[in-house]
C-alpha cells in the first residue's frame, strides 16, 4: 500500500487543487446519483417505474451510492478534525475530575475523542489505572459509540437538524446518567483486580502530537478506506432490508403493531436492537424506511441507540476486565436509559 500523497503534486497549491478536484467530483456524483439510476433503470433497461420490484431495486442502488458518498465525506471530515484530539489528552482532562461533573465532561469527550470500541479494553485499563473514577470511565465508554460521528452526520443529512439535536442530547443524557448510576452502585469489586494493579510505565505517547497537515489528510483517507472495508457487509444488509421494507411492507403492518399508540413498541425495538450488532450507517436506511412507514421517531431513536451502544462483540471484549455482575449492570442501566428516552420522545413528539 503506497501513500496517496505520493501521487499528489508536491506543492501546497497543487495539493489544495487536488483536494478541491476531489470535492467537486464528489459533489457531481452526489447530484447525478438519482438521475443516473432513473435513466439506467427506467430508460436504458426499460423497467416499469411503477412496479414494486423496480422500486425496490432503485431504492437499493440509489441508497447504496448515496450512503457510501455521504460516509466518505463524513468520515474524512471527522477524522481530520478529530486528529487534533486524542484519548491520551482526554484521560489527562478526566484525571482530576469527580463524579457528577466528571460524568458530564466524560460524555462530551466521548463524542469528540477518536476512539473505536476495539480499543475499549486498553482504554478502560488506562483510565481506571490512572485514577479516573469507574462511573466517569463508563460515561466515556457509553457516549463514544452512542453519539458517534457517523450517526450524527447521517441523521443530519437524512432527517434534519432537529432530530439530530434530539438524538445527541438524549445520547449524552444516557451516557451521563448511566455512568453516574454505575458509579453510585459501587461496583469496583467486579472489576478484574489486575486492572487496579496495572502500573503505567514508560512515557505516554500522544498520537496527535507532531502531525503535519499532510499526515492528517493521509490519516483521514486511510480511515475512510478502513471503515468502509469494515462495514460494507452491514451496509448492504441494512440497505437491502430498508429496500424491502420500503417496497413490500404495508404501512398498516407497523402502525398496527408498533405505532404511536402501541405501549410495547419501544420495548420491542430495544429488545430487537440490543443483540443486533451493526454500524450506525448500516441501520440508517432501515430507520429511514421504517419512518416512512409511520413508526414514531422515539421508537426509532431507541432502536438505533440499542443497536450502536450495546453489542455482543464489545461485551465479550469487556469481559476480560469486567466480571459478569458489572457487565449485566452496564447493559441493564444503558438499556433502561434507552427505553426511557424512547417513551419520552414518543410522548413529546406525538406521532
Amino acid at each position, binding site marked *: 500500500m503506497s*501513500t496517496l500523497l505520493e501521487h499528489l503534486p508536491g506543492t501546497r497549491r497543487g495539493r489544495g487543487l487536488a483536494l478541491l478536484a476531489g470535492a467537486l467530483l464528489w459533489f457531481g456524483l452526489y447530484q447525478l446519483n438519482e438521475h443516473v439510476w432513473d435513466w439506467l433503470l427506467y430508460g436504458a433497461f426499460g423497467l416499469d417505474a411503477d412496479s414494486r420490484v423496480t422500486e425496490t431495486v432503485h431504492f437499493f442502488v440509489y441508497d447504496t451510492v448515496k450512503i457510501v458518498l455521504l460516509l466518505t465525506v463524513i468520515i474524512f471530515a471527522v477524522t481530520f478534525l478529530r486528529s487534533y484530539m486524542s484519548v491520551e489528552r482526554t484521560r489527562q482532562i478526566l484525571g482530576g475530575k469527580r463524579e457528577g461533573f466528571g460524568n458530564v465532561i466524560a460524555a462530551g469527550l466521548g463524542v469528540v475523542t477518536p476512539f473505536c470500541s476495539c480499543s475499549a*479494553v486498553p482504554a478502560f485499563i*488506562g*483510565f481506571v489505572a490512572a485514577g479516573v473514577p469507574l462511573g466517569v470511565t463508563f460515561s466515556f465508554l457509553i457516549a463514544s459509540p452512542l453519539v458517534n460521528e457517523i450517526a450524527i452526520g447521517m441523521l443530519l443529512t437524512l432527517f434534519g437538524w432537529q432530530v439530530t439535536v434530539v438524538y445527541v442530547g438524549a445520547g449524552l443524557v444516557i451516557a451521563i446518567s448511566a455512568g453516574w448510576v454505575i458509579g453510585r452502585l459501587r461496583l469496583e469489586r467486579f472489576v478484574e483486580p489486575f486492572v487496579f494493579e496495572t502500573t503505567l510505565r514508560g512515557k505516554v*505517547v500522544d*498520537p496527535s502530537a507532531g502531525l503535519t497537515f499532510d499526515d492528517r489528510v493521509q490519516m483521514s483517507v486511510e480511515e475512510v478506506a478502513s471503515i468502509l472495508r469494515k462495514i460494507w457487509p452491514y451496509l448492504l444488509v441494512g440497505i437491502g432490508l430498508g429496500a424491502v421494507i420500503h417496497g413490500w411492507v404495508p404501512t398498516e403492518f407497523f402502525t398496527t403493531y408498533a405505532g404511536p399508540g402501541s405501549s410495547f413498541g419501544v420495548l420491542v425495538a430495544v429488545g430487537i436492537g440490543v443483540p443486533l450488532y451493526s454500524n450506525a450507517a448500516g441501520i440508517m436506511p432501515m430507520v429511514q424506511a421504517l419512518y416512512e412507514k409511520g413508526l414514531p421517531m422515539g421508537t426509532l431513536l431507541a432502536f438505533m441507540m440499542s443497536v450502536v451502544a450495546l453489542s455482543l462483540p464489545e461485551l465479550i471484549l469487556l469481559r476480560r476486565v469486567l466480571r459478569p455482575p458489572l457487565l449485566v449492570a452496564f447493559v441493564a442501566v444503558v438499556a433502561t436509559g434507552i427505553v426511557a428516552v424512547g417513551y419520552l420522545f414518543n410522548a413529546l413528539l406525538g406521532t
Partner: protein
Amino acid sequence: MEIKVLGSGCTNCQNLEKAAREAVASLGVDATIEHVTDPAEIAAYGVMRTPALVVDDDVVMSGRVPTTQTVRELLVARSS
C-alpha cells in the same frame, strides 16, 4: 532491534504486524517481531488505542495502521 505489535488480534493489528514485517525485510535489519495481545501488558505501555508499535520498549506509534513506508521511516529513525 526488538519490535512489538500491541493489539487485541483485530484486523488492524494484523495489518500493522504485516507492515512491520515488510518494513524489516526491506530494510534488512536484524529484528524480532512479537505480537502482544495481553490487555494488561498493552495498558502497561500506556497505550489506549490499538494497534500500537513498540520498538526496544518505547511506544513509537499508536492508534493507526501506518503504511509500510511509514514503519520504515520510524525504524530508520530509531536505528540511527
